[in-house]
């Protein structure tokens, strides 16, 4: 929601009914996961 819809943390917190701190940690986790996935894919390709 942050990266695709451009919502603020506050807006995401309201929409998902979560505390802002959780929004931030989930975002960090999601981005980290994506990073890992891309890393693995690139490692496989090269």
């Amino acid at each position, binding site marked *: *929601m942050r990266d*695709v819809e*451009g*919502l603020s943390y506050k807006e995401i917190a309201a929409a998902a009914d979560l505390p802002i701190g959780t929004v931030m940690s989930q975002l960090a986790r999601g981005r980290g996961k994506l990073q890992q996935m891309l890393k693995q894919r690139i490692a496989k390709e*090269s």
Partner: protein
Amino acid sequence: MNCDDARILLHGHLDGELELGRDLELQRHLAECPQCAGEYQSMRAMRQRLRDDEFHFAAPPELLEQIRDAMPAAGRSSTVSQISRPRLTSRTARFAIPLAVAAMLALLILPRMIPRGENDSVAREVVSSHVRSLMASHLTDVASTDQHTVKPWFDGKLDFSPTVIDFAREGFPLVGGRLDYVGQRGVNALVYQRGKHVINVFMWPASDTTTAVERIESEHGYNVEQTTVAGMNCWVVSDLNQVELKKFADLLHSRG
């Protein structure tokens, strides 16, 4: 503050979402923790690079649809805009979509793409030519598996005589050739095949003929190899896997 907390707050900081107190705590931690400071620098550098036009690309609409569909309805912009959106218009959101998706995709691809200024633009050109050659049913001007037909065909069309070798025995049969335009000059494009994969080989006289075979980063899923063949600058592009394409480029280099 421990590192786990800091790694989370980094996102908030970079998104401009951290309240002042937390931000100051984070700054203090970064000042005394080189690992987290390094992570911060690399995340920040990545975001900056992604603002460059050079690395910016729009995510295809289908992908955005898929991502939207996976969201809770309340998070989709159409719904949210009805709730309260003091700062963000849907236009901003739309703009942010490709940027952010590109950001994430480029995160790891990026460091592999940055160097080699001039080669980068040639790589882009040859990949574009390769794609065009497949799209426009204009793969070959002269369709022949015979190198003695293809080579003379270029006579008088270019100011150099390209090296044309058929590698059918090695599993890369020559399919034909055509004229193309790369690096602001007319070049020859030789077309080879490996199974169903088409390989385009672009050649023009080189000033530096020392390059053996060098892998240029893949662009949009295509693999690109650069080499020299008998004094020619030679670029090889295909959707063929990198290992086989390298083998082909080595063949060209050694037999040219």
